[in-house]
């Protein structure tokens, strides 16, 4: 009760500080001193502290199970383990927005601390734009989604948290994803500031790059954690479903990846300035667009969130205000300082990065259309459809092949101008080896599909080429090489996983044996346990496959009572080469269980390669600092 009120008032103080920051930083623009005034910094710090306090008070309310707070009442329960009480703070709409606000204020404070060498006016304009976003979030929180709403009479018990969200990975997934999403707000604000200050040059690119890398890193890890959660918890035996909410996180990622490359061209060659600005603005806009689509409930998705049209209208208006403002600033105030018609050659690093960007934009537009089209169709023609994997596979795979081939050549091309001597005997030999190996792989899998064969060839080729790069003399771009290696490994593992996965589905009861192609499944026993907030039913299965040792798998069903819900936990045995995945479900009305046994090759490598991909970029960051 007390914490809720303290939290509410510190939130109001935070908004109040925003209102002070606007006039004093505007005043600071007039002064001719080099550094930003200490008063401005102070108030930005105060604002950060008040939002932080507000967030901590909300965490306290959750830990204490203070059900006089509406958010706690709706999303928590006194029987819940402490970790999930804490993670419950950001596992709901109101709390997650408060967390977003915290990240927004934290980032602008860090930005001001770390960019003292930048022009003062540029810093102040960045602060102003960031404050506009912050005020938007404050108003949204206070007027439509107040996390500190009071309930009277005080309920005895809370409504519980969705049990499917009670998972350690999911406890850290949202904060990390927000760091990525909201981190792009700094990129957005500083791009607009750079346009106004006519500061779009290589210095700016250099300073912005670290923010791009940081956001990109968090977004990559955030998406990875979401995928891992889907794989272990949803029990569908996959890691990517082209679900709208997944697509929404992938779109800013693609945009940010394009930006990560184009900013290097701006830094090194002073080219692509306008394009880089477009990407900077688009990344945050896509993140906000994602927030709108998820939070307004306009989408049909497996991810369920509270639907509230009022909230939707607020985010929509705010989103379009940001889009229109940035369009206006970009078109009216952007005066390209750098002459864009600087000489560039067809066969050069800048061209290859541009080609990379074009591919990224193609992938991005496919996903954008697939996600948005159902909404447009429903509004315009009143028809409801669902765009699924066939759409994405048809549109993305044909372009993935040239992209992979291109990626194996592009990074090695020199700046300004290069010769065609990259194509030599060694590469042709490697290519032929790839063709042969891929043919053998595909033949073994019995997949006989030309598409898949060519895809395997190109990803294998890229994989070998990225390894080959490590043996080159200069190791300036070690981070880039590691990232590219991680990416090639990721794609290769996804393809091999798709080609070699096997699946057996059957209904079975205790004591029964089931023979499938290649082995036997034996349902040995079933045990019940009472856990803190659910009943657990664990089945024991022994699986004997040809030429392999017998393995035991124990999938679990959890029956929650707050709210009434059953979740199935897959049991997964992970080895270096493959995952054995077993999940069981109740079959209503009899004592049979529906089981699904899958072998999924190279699963662990899909996760590891994504981590390599992300940390490669981070290494880049570290190198910069050391220099």
């Amino acid at each position, binding site marked *: 009760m007390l914490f809720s009120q303290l939290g509410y008032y510190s939130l109001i103080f935070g908004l109040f500080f925003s209102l002070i920051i606007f006039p004093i930083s505007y005043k600071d623009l007039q002064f001719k001193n080099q550094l930003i005034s200490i008063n401005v910094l102070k108030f930005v710090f105060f604002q950060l502290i008040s939002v932080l306090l507000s967030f901590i008070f909300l965490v306290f309310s959750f830990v204490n199970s203070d059900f006089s707070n509406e958010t706690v009442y709706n999303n928590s329960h006194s029987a819940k383990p402490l970790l999930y009480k804490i993670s419950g703070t950001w596992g709901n709409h109101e709390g997650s927005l408060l967390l977003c606000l915290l990240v927004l204020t934290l980032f602008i404070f860090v930005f001001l601390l770390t960019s003292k060498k930048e022009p003062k006016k540029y810093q102040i304009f960045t602060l102003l734009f960031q404050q506009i976003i912050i005020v938007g979030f404050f108003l949204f929180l206070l007027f439509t989604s107040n996390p500190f709403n009071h309930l009277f009479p005080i309920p005895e018990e809370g409504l519980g948290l969705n049990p499917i969200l009670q998972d350690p990975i999911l406890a850290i997934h949202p904060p990390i994803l927000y760091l990525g999403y909201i981190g792009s707000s700094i990129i957005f604000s500083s791009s607009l500031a750079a346009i106004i200050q006519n500061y779009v040059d290589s210095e700016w690119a250099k300073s912005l790059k670290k923010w791009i890398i940081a956001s990109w890193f968090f977004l990559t890890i955030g998406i990875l954690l979401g995928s891992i959660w889907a794989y272990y918890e949803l029990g569908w035996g996959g890691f990517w*479903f*082209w*679900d709208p909410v997944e697509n929404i996180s992938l779109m800013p990622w693609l945009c940010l990846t394009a930006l990560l490359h184009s900013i290097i061209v701006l830094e090194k060659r002073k080219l692509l300035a306008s394009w880089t600005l477009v990407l900077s603005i688009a990344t945050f806009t896509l993140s906000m667009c994602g927030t*709108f689509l998820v939070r*307004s409930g*306009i989408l*049909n*998705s*497996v991810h369920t969130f509270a639907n509230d*049209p009022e909230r*939707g*209208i607020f985010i*929509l208006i705010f989103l*379009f205000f940001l*889009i*229109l403002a940035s*369009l206006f600033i970009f*078109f*009216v105030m952007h005066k390209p300082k750098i002459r864009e018609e600087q000489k560039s050659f067809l066969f050069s690093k800048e061209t290859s990065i541009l080609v990379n960007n074009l591919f990224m934009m193609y992938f991005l537009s496919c996903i954008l259309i697939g996600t948005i089209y*159902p*909404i*447009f*169709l*429903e*509004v*315009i*023609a*009143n*028809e*409801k*459809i*669902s765009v*699924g*994997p*066939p759409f994405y596979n048809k549109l993305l795979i044909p372009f993935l092949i040239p992209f992979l081939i291109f990626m194996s050549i592009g990074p090695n091309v020199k700046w300004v101008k290069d010769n065609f001597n990259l194509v030599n005997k060694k590469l042709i030999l490697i290519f032929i080896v790839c063709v042969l190996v891929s043919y053998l792989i595909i033949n073994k899998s019995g997949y006989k599909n030309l598409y898949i064969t060519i895809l395997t060839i190109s990803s294998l080729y890229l994989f070998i080429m990225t390894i080959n790069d490590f043996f080159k003399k200069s190791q300036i771009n070690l981070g880039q090489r590691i990232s590219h290696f991680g990416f090639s490994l990721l794609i290769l593992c996804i393809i091999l996983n798709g080609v070699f996965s096997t*699946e057996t*589905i059957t*209904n079975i009861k205790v004591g029964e044996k089931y023979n499938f192609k290649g082995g036997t499944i034996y349902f040995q026993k079933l045990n019940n346990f009472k856990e803190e907030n659910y009943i657990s039913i664990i089945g024991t299965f022994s699986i004997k496959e040809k030429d392999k040792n017998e393995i035991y798998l124990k999938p679990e069903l959890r029956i929650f009572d707050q709210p009434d819900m059953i979740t199935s936990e897959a049991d997964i045995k992970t080895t270096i080469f493959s995952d054995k995945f077993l999940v069981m*479900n109740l079959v209503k009305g009899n004592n049979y269980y*529906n089981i*699904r046994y899958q072998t999924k090759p190279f699963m662990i490598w899909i996760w590891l390669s994504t981590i390599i991909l992300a940390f490669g970029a981070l290494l880049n960051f570290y190198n910069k600092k050391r220099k």
Partner: protein
Amino acid sequence: MKKNTLFLIILIFTIFCFIVLLKGLSKDNSYKPNINFGKKLSSFEGKNFFNDQLINSNELFNENKIYVLNIWASWCAPCRAEHSVLMELKKNKLIEIIGINYKDNLTNAKKFVDEYGNPYSEILIDEDGTIAISLGAYGIPETIVVDKNQIILKKFFGAISNKSLNEINSLTK
């Protein structure tokens, strides 16, 4: 293209998106059936879901019943949502539900039916989407109600609701 023209085009497009999304927020989630009833269903052919035998549409509609053609796929989220309604509809003995499994992975589709139950008396595989095209479907899920003469009585775009269930059931009274 001149900068101003580009600006104007993007501006108009942005405003268009805004209006569509705003309308999308306030839309009513019910579905209106198409008004073009009374036409005869064009004939189609497809493999049987369970035994791979070819079935012609003319073999399907031979009893004096109401036939409900439901186009579905295991990857389609609204299909999952409407499935319980189809299971409910199955209880009406005067109705036969025929499934058209649209561009699906057969294993996933079978899993789907195992898990959620099978309301269909027959399922035809529509691997490349040609049956759906010949039925004039726009997307999935889509449900077409015909009588034994294959005359279209009703059409539902998107997941069918309990309201649609009553509408279909009332046709048998």
